[in-house]
């Protein structure tokens, strides 16, 4: 079974790339494969280039040195992502001690400043706490501190706010943005929150059924969504400036079962604009606008579609 198929994208230093899509669209698997953390018996084929080096070609030692040092990951659920039996400070120190960027003494000394940097009050005392003594938001801050402690050049945040209270979501996102700017690190932000993408990301990748269906600069994607799926996603998002004017549209149907993918375009059973070709042949990811790629036959045939231009 292919959970993710034919994914290809790049991220530059300092850039924030949003990966959006419904649950089960392969966002997390894509992120995990970047660190070769796909759970058994998953396999990754192709190439994952970090600078000149192919992550898939690295030896066990090289990949270990790469994880957490060059590329750090922040997971969805801070409640379960920290080891319950180890002190928070230790878990952060350990992330640094595992790599050669800092000496043991530097690692120890950096724990408190790191926690202060993610705005945890009374950091000096809190390093001795265990994760269950932290609130959800504080744990996610601590996870961010752990992630950025080695000053990685790429930070992958896998739905970092999904498990958190709405009131703390904004502060976590703000923190992520500030810290990535300070480090001049690239960020891959996995989310299904379109509003977050709009406010934070330079570029957007829209995934559906393990494929990229559209990608491009955030501005273009929001102003001029090309793929019917992207279009529906945006329609399902509430907007402050349109209160009362329009009903939120839900995308009819359910995401496909990855074991029983439809033939042709994977979105066609839910698509309102499908043509015959969509049922039999999968469209390629093609340029529909400068910088903007989409995977849709209708767009390529230049079929005028007034509804999609809205």
């Amino acid at each position, binding site marked *: 079974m292919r959970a993710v198929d034919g994914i290809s994208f790049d991220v530059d230093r300092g850039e924030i790339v949003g990966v959006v899509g419904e649950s089960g669209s392969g966002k997390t698997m894509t992120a995990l494969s970047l660190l070769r*953390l796909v759970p058994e018996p998953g396999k990754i084929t192709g190439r994952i280039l970090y600078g000149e080096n192919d992550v898939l070609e690295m030896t066990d030692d090289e990949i*270990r040195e790469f*994880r957490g040092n060059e590329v750090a990951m922040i997971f969805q659920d801070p409640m*379960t992502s920290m080891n*319950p*039996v180890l002190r928070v400070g230790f878990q952060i120190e350990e992330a640094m001690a595992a790599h050669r960027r800092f000496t043991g003494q530097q690692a120890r000394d950096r724990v408190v400043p790191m926690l202060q940097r993610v705005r945890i009050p009374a950091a000096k005392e809190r390093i001795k706490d265990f994760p269950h003594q932290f609130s959800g938001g504080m744990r996610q801050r601590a996870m961010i501190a752990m992630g950025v402690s080695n000053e990685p050049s790429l930070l992958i945040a896998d739905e970092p706010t999904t498990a958190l209270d709405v009131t703390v979501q904004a502060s976590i996102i703000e923190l992520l943005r500030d810290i990535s700017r300070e480090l001049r690190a690239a960020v891959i932000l996995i989310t299904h929150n379109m509003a977050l993408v709009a406010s934070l990301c330079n570029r957007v990748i829209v995934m559906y059924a393990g494929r990229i269906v559209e990608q491009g600069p955030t501005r273009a994607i929001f102003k001029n969504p090309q793929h019917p799926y992207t279009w529906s996603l945006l329609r399902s998002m509430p907007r402050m400036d349109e209160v009362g004017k329009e009903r939120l549209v839900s995308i009819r149907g359910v995401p496909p079962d990855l074991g029983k993918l439809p033939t042709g375009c994977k979105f066609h059973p839910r698509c309102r604009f499908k043509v015959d070709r969509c049922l039999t042949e999968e469209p390629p990811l093609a340029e529909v606008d400068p910088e903007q790629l989409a995977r849709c036959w209708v767009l390529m045939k230049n079929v005028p579609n007034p509804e999609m231009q809205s």
Partner: protein
Amino acid sequence: MSRGTLVYAAQRLVLITVTAVVVSSIVFIGIHQLPGNALASERRNNPATEAALLHHYNLDLPWPQQYVLWVQGLAHGDMGESLVNMGVQITPLLLREARVSVTLGLAAVLITIGVGLTLGTIAAIRQNTWVDYVASTSAVVGYSVPSFVWAFLLILLTVSGFYAWTGGLVYENIGWGKIEQIPVPALALGLPYAAIVARLTRASMLEVIRQDYVRTAWAKGLKARVVILRHSLRNALIPVISILGPLVTGIITGSVVIEYIFGIPGLGQEFVSSILSRDYNIVIGVFTFYAVLIGLANLAVDLIYPVLDPRIRY
């Protein structure tokens, strides 16, 4: 150790004392309902001597009164005198024997935990490979074979086996007193329990290595050894600890048979021989010692919990 833990331990110690008194009382009352006594034998005694003996041991008194006297003695740590070997004080005798039994028991517990954790962990990280199959199958064999069968197999292997294979150079005698005589009986005692620990550890590890925090540990770039030992095994141990209470109890009671087979002068052997010779006072004493030992062992196990898991506080 926190204040709460100390209070908890103190409460448990009181409970252990109460248990010991209750156990000894039940045994005391029960054993005095049996017909005959330790002095009854085929040999005819002089009636006057017998009366004197009965009086010496307070056996001529009604048993409620004997009981009161016995409890008074116990309060001073005096469990009385052996009925069979006159003049032998029971408390120092049993203390000496308890030291032997505890040494054997601790060795067995160490073997159990060492073998069990190692096998279970290896089986879990090599799940569904031949390593796992070998470890899991050995575990089934391990706990299907009772201790006393292991004892005979091990005696055959070490005592006669080594002697024959080395042409008489290595001769290990069973018994007690030399350090090299500890491992074989400890192994016989611990193997079935090691198998249980191995299976439990494997199941627990399999669950833990799929946890999010283990994925975090890998994502941090930690070494495999650190991920497995520090992040996985430590968490996997928490459910394994819960089996240690019944396990230690099993090892303590199992030592009755093993000590008898290996001729180890511990509480277990005393237990068997005192019942056979109807040495009431010793029987009661051994039961009381066992009750205290099992209570202390379970307390020790419970005190490990908060050390392993900071979320547990007493």
